[in-house]
């Protein structure tokens, strides 16, 4: 662990910072989330570090609470997509046959429609609440995890130790959770970072389009939407959450790159 490259250190630092801010949001936010404390679009001052937003709420507090919502939704969606995607992927690889065919062709079909478009189609009839968002994003994204998990598991499934476990008479549950899962973990973890970024960008995009987190609840995409009219008057309030999204995504990317490099070198360069 001594040889963490500098880029990964920076990434880890900022990722941890954002997560801590999300967890302790009520403690560190100077004002309430929807509390109107000043004038419209005040510039930054000692009182309001980042200024105020389009109806006079403290932007820093909204950013902190918004980060909490964004990171929570993205994390939950990532976990959901990993649990569904990897279990189905492993099952498809272990069972093979028609089960594999049906699942894989269905995933192909879902991936043939752009994710954003499919999400918009589904959200046009679903009530837009946080659980719905998590469900829609998690399930749509699980198709990508499924592909990776299946590909990795197919490789592992023919290894000698899996054969040995089968001959020992272990059940499918044992094969999946005790043989395949530990060996498939490192590529999956590296992928997890990328999926998390994708989820952050996706939920921000949906909120920006007005179809994600609904006001007065704050989230980064929503803050951009609320303050976008200020841009034309030269007020940069909308750029702050966008900047936060970008730095979070870049830091997670740096960490994911590092994990990916480590795992590929462990496997002798196999991607």
């Amino acid at each position, binding site marked *: 662990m001594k040889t963490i490259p500098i880029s990964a250190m920076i990434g880890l630092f900022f990722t941890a910072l954002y997560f801590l801010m999300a967890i302790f949001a009520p403690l560190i936010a100077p004002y309430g989330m929807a509390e109107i404390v000043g004038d419209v679009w005040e510039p930054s001052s000692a009182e309001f570090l980042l200024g105020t937003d389009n109806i006079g709420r403290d932007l820093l507090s909204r950013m902190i609470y918004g980060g909490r919502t964004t990171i929570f939704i993205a994390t939950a969606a990532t976990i959901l997509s990993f649990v569904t995607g990897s279990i189905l992927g492993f099952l498809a690889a272990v069972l093979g046959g028609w089960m594999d065919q049906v699942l894989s062709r269905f995933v*192909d*079909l*879902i991936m*043939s*429609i*752009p994710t*954003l*478009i*499919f999400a*918009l*189609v*589904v*959200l*046009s*009839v*679903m*009530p837009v609440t946080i659980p719905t968002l998590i469900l829609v994003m998690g399930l749509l994204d699980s198709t990508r995890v499924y592909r990776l998990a299946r590909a990795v598991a197919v490789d592992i499934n023919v290894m000698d130790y899996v054969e040995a476990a089968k001959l020992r008479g272990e059940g499918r549950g044992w094969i999946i959770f005790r043989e395949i899962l530990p060996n498939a973990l490192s590529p999956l973890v590296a992928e997890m970072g990328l999926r998390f*970024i994708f989820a952050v*960008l996706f939920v*921000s*995009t949906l909120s*920006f*389009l*007005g*179809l994600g987190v609904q006001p007065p609840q704050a989230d980064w*995409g929503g803050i*951009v939407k609320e303050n*976008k009219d200020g*841009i*034309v*008057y*030269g007020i*940069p309030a*909308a*750029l702050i959450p*966008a*900047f936060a*999204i*970008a730095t979070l*995504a*870049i830091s997670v*990317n740096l960490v994911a790159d590092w994990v990916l490099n480590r795992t590929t070198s462990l496997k002798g360069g196999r991607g």
Partner: protein
Amino acid sequence: MHPVLKLVAQRLALGLLLLLAASALIFAGTMILPGDVAQSILGQSATPEALANLRAELGLNDPPVQRYFDWLLGAVQGDLGTALTNGRDIAESLSQRLSNTLFLAFWAAVISVPLAIFLGLIAVRYKDRWPDKLISAVTLASISIPEFLIGYLLMFFIAVQLGWAPSVAMIGEHMNLGQKLQSIALPVIVLTLVVLAHMMRMTRAAILNVMQSAYIETAELKGLSSFHVIYRHAFPNAIAPIVNVVMLNLAYLVVGVVVVEVVFVYPGMGQYLVDHVSKRDVPVVQACGLIFAAVYIGLNMIADIVSILANPRLRHPK
């Protein structure tokens, strides 16, 4: 039949089948959900009469399979139904917007494709030296930034601070090509930046892959200059993967357009789709979803067909 023709025909058939299945999925996505569509459009406070009217208007009393085939047959004949919110014919309101969107995507493609291939070649030529490192750093940054951030950054600095381009991309019948191009300058730049990174990275990977072949080593040993090696020997063999990359990114462009259109208030398909999703206008959403999916599947299909045609091994059957 010639094997290439056979493969192409197979791909075409597969594409059509996929489109059919995608249309069923889009239809099912708006129908087989918990609750009643009419209820979710009108809200909890709707009167029973209003609900019954809307159900009849949407044809919700028919069985779902019949509704799907009615919708599909209509769509094939160019009849996409009428919008719930304003009662207009969807196909009519869509056609102008579709051509606006294609206009935007076309110019973004015209700029980004040659640029991405050129920069990809540069990155390969100067592999592991500063141009390559710079290009990969910029790539990482632009993958991590949401489209709307790039849009607003450019709008803030170029349109508002410097005043070089209009911040809102209005476009109309009366404008000539020059005026139109000036008004879409910013959205085109944003879309170019969004797809450039992916395209460049994948071009670089595709050429590097070819560069490891034995014939490249031979060419190097003959003493050819490195640009000559890339241009004469690596590039022709990398055409199929590069065309694939370009098509995948054009497909991505079609989706990226949705967000960029909303940022710049551009009167295209994306804006239309987003507006009607929030109004819960199901027929419009289905129609737009179908068109976006069709373009996406179509571009992916073209990518496959081009790589079949570009593969010389398939041209001479044994």
